[in-house]
């Protein structure tokens, strides 16, 4: 990211204080979102989300696997994010590793709930085929192609759309031997669509000066003192919370930011749902 001069930083801070950002948006306005589904035909589901100049792809692959011993009635999901060097020169080699880890952990926390699997946005019990023996392993991969701020929101939106695009093949269980792995027949034709009504979206509020903004560009992010990412589902319930940045926040400010994020997220969910519906309609 190129540095900013003092004059430019002053201009950005002034814009946020006066509710008119560099591209004319208000503080709580998102950039225009464009969504494409099915960009990776070999994956079970995929989506590409563009948020201004930020460009991310999420892909979902499902493979047969064995459920963990502690949770025999739930499938497994793993989320991993990769920052491509085409997004920024600093991502070359191992430079993007720290950011990728941060994003992966934040997404896991928001979408998969606690370590016990409780409270996951994705229903893990729908992934089980034979209790204790066979389940679906979902591998969710995020790829950052172009980075202009607000990667977490874009990735969460891409994952939500990709899940709506995912088709898990229908499986019929043959032979039921008690100890060994049962034989399963994976259908090539029939697919089960994933139910994404419970999947939350993430809204990141960046605090600059005394005000918060939604959907910061990378220039605005360079001016932030702290940021809170709130994951909210359709019913307005908070599914996850992450705070970044070294500056401290008063508890009342945190509560205020959460309530602002809640109201903004409902608009975002509406926009994403209409995009998903449009994409499904264009497929048919």
């Amino acid at each position, binding site marked *: 990211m*190129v*540095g*900013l*001069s*003092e*004059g*430019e930083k*002053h*201009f*950005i*801070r*002034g*814009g946020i*204080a*006066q509710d*008119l*950002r*560099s*591209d*004319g*948006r*208000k503080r709580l*306005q998102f950039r*225009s979102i*464009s969504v494409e589904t099915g960009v990776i035909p070999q994956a079970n589901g995929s989506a590409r989300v*563009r948020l201004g*100049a930020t460009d991310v792809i999420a892909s979902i692959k499902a493979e047969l696997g064995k459920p963990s011993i502690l949770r025999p009635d739930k499938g497994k999901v793993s989320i991993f994010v990769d920052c491509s060097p085409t997004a920024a020169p600093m991502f070359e080699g191992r430079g993007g590793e720290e950011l990728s880890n941060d994003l992966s952990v934040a997404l896991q926390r928001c979408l998969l709930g606690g370590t016990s699997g409780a409270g996951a946005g994705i229903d893990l019990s729908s992934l089980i085929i034979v209790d204790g023996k066979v389940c679906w392993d979902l591998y969710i991969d995020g790829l950052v192609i172009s980075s202009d701020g607000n990667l977490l929101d874009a990735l969460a939106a891409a994952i939500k759309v990709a899940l709506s695009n995912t088709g898990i093949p229908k499986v019929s269980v043959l032979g039921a031997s008690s100890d060994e792995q049962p034989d399963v027949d994976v259908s090539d034709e029939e697919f089960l669509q994933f139910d994404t009504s419970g999947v939350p979206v993430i809204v990141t509020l960046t605090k600059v*000066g005394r005000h918060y903004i939604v959907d910061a560009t990378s220039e605005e992010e360079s001016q932030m003192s702290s940021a809170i990412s709130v994951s909210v589902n359709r019913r307005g319930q908070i599914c996850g919370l992450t705070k970044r940045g070294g500056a401290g926040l008063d508890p009342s400010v945190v509560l205020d930011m959460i309530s602002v994020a809640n109201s903004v997220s409902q608009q975002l969910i509406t926009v994403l749902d209409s995009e998903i519906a449009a994409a499904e309609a264009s497929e048919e």
Partner: protein
Amino acid sequence: MRDLQPSLNQTQRVRLQSALRQLHSLPSSSSSLLYSVAVAVAVAVADPIHVNHEDNILKGHGTLDCDGEVVATLCGVVERVNKLVYVHALQARYKPEVGDIIVGRVIEIAPKRWRLEINFSQVAVLMLSSMNLPDGIQRRRTAVDELNMRSIFEENDVICAEVRGFQHDGSLHLQARSQKYGKLERGQLLTVPAYLVKRRKKHFHHLEQYGVDLIIGCNGFIWVGEHVEAGENVGMLVEDQKKTSIAEEESGSFTPLETRKHICRIANAVRLLSALGFTLTVEAIVDTAEASLASNIEINDMLGAKLFVQTVEREVQRRASMVRKKG
């Protein structure tokens, strides 16, 4: 069209397609009109160029003699001037010429010079001796001046300067001696592809009706900011500036909202035109901004579908009227 792909509805898509088709059929205001070539021949790398082998033609830039055939080494348009045949690349990095006005960002402070990033293959150099001192006196630069370089320009500052010449290794020498050059503050810097900015007589534009300074650098860096009188640019010491900026924030004296609205509108007009690939001239930028005002489009909606299609159609009308005037 890059970067910007607004979601168009059906009527907008149809209008856009027909406008683009008309644009392709109309000749643009490029040199192809002057040379009265019937059709501009576009070539890609390794395409053969049709030449009459009897004349001894000169093979210029972007061509290669391959087994007796003249082959293009660049993607572009073939231009012929008398006996010279060359390929004019359409999209290329900034090609500097002496006297160009450019906007750059300081990336390094070296002994007696600043190094600027200007979207060129090499870093440009601004010597301390090519810069007016804050006190305005013409004198020899002493060691104390050299130590105080940071008080004139710091790292990451945005500077406007002029190309003075080339060094022996091809890197640029800049000079910023006049009052209108110097540090740029209170505004935003936009980056567009360098080939969209043509050389004109004036690159500094003070848009009076908006109170906005628009500096169109030949290297593709465009500065849109609050209007500053020439002479206030140079000579602001950094410590004073830091004190005033903290004081400004406390008293809330940021750029006034009306000026800020105009700055954002002009900046969005520049973004829109660069995404469409149209040449950036002051007239085009101001026209686009005024059209958006006339159609009551909100500033943040300027990058949306409505103004997108409108701008392409206006450009079609402009070129059609130009062709009618010439013919």
